[in-house]
């Protein structure tokens, strides 16, 4: 069983809730990513999602798109980020999930991608543009190598698909709170609680909720029904603003880590 699976099994067994922060990898540079990860408390955050910058992120709203296009303009390369993470492995306590487009995974060849991601210190993978129809190979490679593939369920997913997704998603199911792209929303969808409870009843797997979760109050509300809350755009917006101000990597990391602590304080 992988480190990530153990973490979620223990959390679930203890009924403890967690925060999953998302940060754009290699933004504005790999050193900043490492600095942020060093400051994250694994007691509060079961893992961190590292978004891999991509030229055509169809599931992302303007905030994450901006971070991706800036990272790419500044010469982001996959190997540069992976090398930096590998070199800093001993300094990073929190497990890492790569959130990456299948365009990138396919280009590097799925098996090879999993190998280099593991070598860089990643513990698992989320591929937001890979539906179950195309996911079997990657899930099989993940099982073979102890590198779980987290699958997403959307409000538009019917029961048959929910069960199929739950069968391969490890170690938790990513429930997308709303139909749409990533981005901050002022309120949580009214049907969220009901959807999460239904998914839990059907699958019995840990469930983490993302998309539109932006504040400490949202985190608290989500964790009343789910195992974890995923916060992306609200964090990346602060990264964008910090970069706009011309902050140094340690200063950007302080901003991000500070906001993550603020969100984590809302965990029950």
């Amino acid at each position, binding site marked *: 069983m992988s480190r990530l699976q153990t973490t979620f099994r223990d959390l679930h067994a203890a009924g403890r809730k967690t925060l999953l922060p998302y940060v754009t990898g290699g933004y504005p540079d790999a050193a900043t990513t490492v600095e942020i990860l060093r400051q994250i408390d694994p007691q509060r955050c079961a893992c961190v999602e590292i978004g891999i910058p991509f030229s*055509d992120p169809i599931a992302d709203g303007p905030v994450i798109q901006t971070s991706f296009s800036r990272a790419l303009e500044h010469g982001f390369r996959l190997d540069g980020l992976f090398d930096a993470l590998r070199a800093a492995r001993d300094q990073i306590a929190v497990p890492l999930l790569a959130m990456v487009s299948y365009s990138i995974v396919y*280009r590097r060849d799925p098996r090879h991608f999993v190998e280099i991601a593991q070598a860089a210190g990643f513990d698992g993978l989320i591929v937001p543009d890979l539906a179950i129809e195309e996911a079997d190979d990657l899930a099989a490679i993940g099982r073979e190598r102890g590198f779980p593939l987290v699958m997403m369920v959307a409000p538009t997913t019917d029961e048959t698909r929910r069960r199929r997704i739950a069968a391969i998603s490890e170690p938790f199911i990513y429930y997308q709170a709303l139909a749409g792209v990533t981005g901050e929303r002022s309120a949580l969808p009214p049907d969220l609680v009901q959807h999460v409870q239904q998914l839990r009843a059907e699958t019995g797997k840990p469930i983490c909720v993302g998309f539109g979760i932006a504040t400490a109050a949202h985190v608290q509300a989500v964790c009343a029904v789910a195992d974890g809350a995923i916060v992306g755009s609200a964090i990346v917006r602060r990264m964008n603003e910090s970069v706009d101000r011309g902050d140094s990597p340690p200063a950007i990391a302080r901003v991000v880590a500070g906001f993550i602590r603020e969100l984590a304080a809302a965990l029950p």
Partner: protein
Amino acid sequence: MPQTPTDATAPAGRFGPFGGQYVPEVLMGALRQLEQEYERAKGDRAFWAGLNDYLKQYAGRPSPLYFARRLTEQLAGAKVYLKREDLNHTGAHKINNTLGQVLLAKRMGKRRVIAETGAGQHGVATATACAMLGLECAVYMGAEDVRRQALNVYRMRLLGAQCIPVESGQRTLKDAINEALRDWMASVEHTHYCIGSVMGPHPFPTIVRDFQAVIGRETKEQMHAAEGRLPDVILACVGGGSNAAGIFYPFIGEKAVRLIGVEAAGEGLDGSRHAATLARGRPGVLHGMLTYVLQDDDGQTLPVHSVSAGLDYPGVGPEHAFWHSTGRVEYASATDAEALDAFELLSRLEGIIPALEPAHAIAYAAKLVPTLPRDRIVVLNLSGRGDKDCIEVARLRGAT
């Protein structure tokens, strides 16, 4: 009279290894719904009768197959026929697909239709079908293309559609597709995404090909009437590849007919400023499909270039990738400069101003036709008219 397409694509929407559905889970329900509705519509005579009636009475089909006498004399080789898709209502082949898809959207009870557009022809054709059938319409268009194709922007707005400039990425067709997909993820319950080419996730490549195959079926009949036989060569330009798929598809089983797709070589295949995906790309995943793409070693989409906004795309329909891999269709290319010369050549010799997209096919014909014997017949799919390009060509030629 167009017939109901009869053959079925492989269940998973694959053309050999190409195609598939690489999209976020949130869209899978809508793709399944579309697939099922299309399966039902496909076997429904009333649907095809309705569509064929619109194609005839509204779009002006069948489009003529015109013998280009002066072009033939000038090139001094094979006889050249032009399949006049430029004479369709709205000025291009795009209306064949949008009438079909907007009728499907109505069958599914969707009240809103979105589209992406490059040159603006698909945007205008979608806006037109929506105006006529009474659906709300929004069209995403790269800001760079909004500049290049101002006339079509005005036409879409006149037709009651919202035309939304896209400022992200390279601000061209690929970015318009990204933005349309993002809209669809939030609006999927009441909105249909009317994709403009034989691309994207299954079932779009199959649906668009089937709606465009009317071009090839008519060509076959008209060629029999004119010459009593099949043509020797069929030429069509390829961006996403819908006009080419439409004219090629009914001839795929006719092994004696050479099928040639012409990609945009931009400023030349040796540099990076081109859009020749099959010539210079490799298999990869983009916009929901596994196909040939222009990507770097990290899977990032490379910038592409063509003088023609409709060919300025770093991917290609997955069935073209398949035909390329099996060798059934040959793929060639023409540069910006060659296409601009061809734009002027056809205007002067035949009194037909072609769109810059099929001007690439004309440019290739100008090289190929003189090498063929005089008893050979070449059909060129003249996929659209060039009014939309006149201002941009005049600017490029220094005439303004």
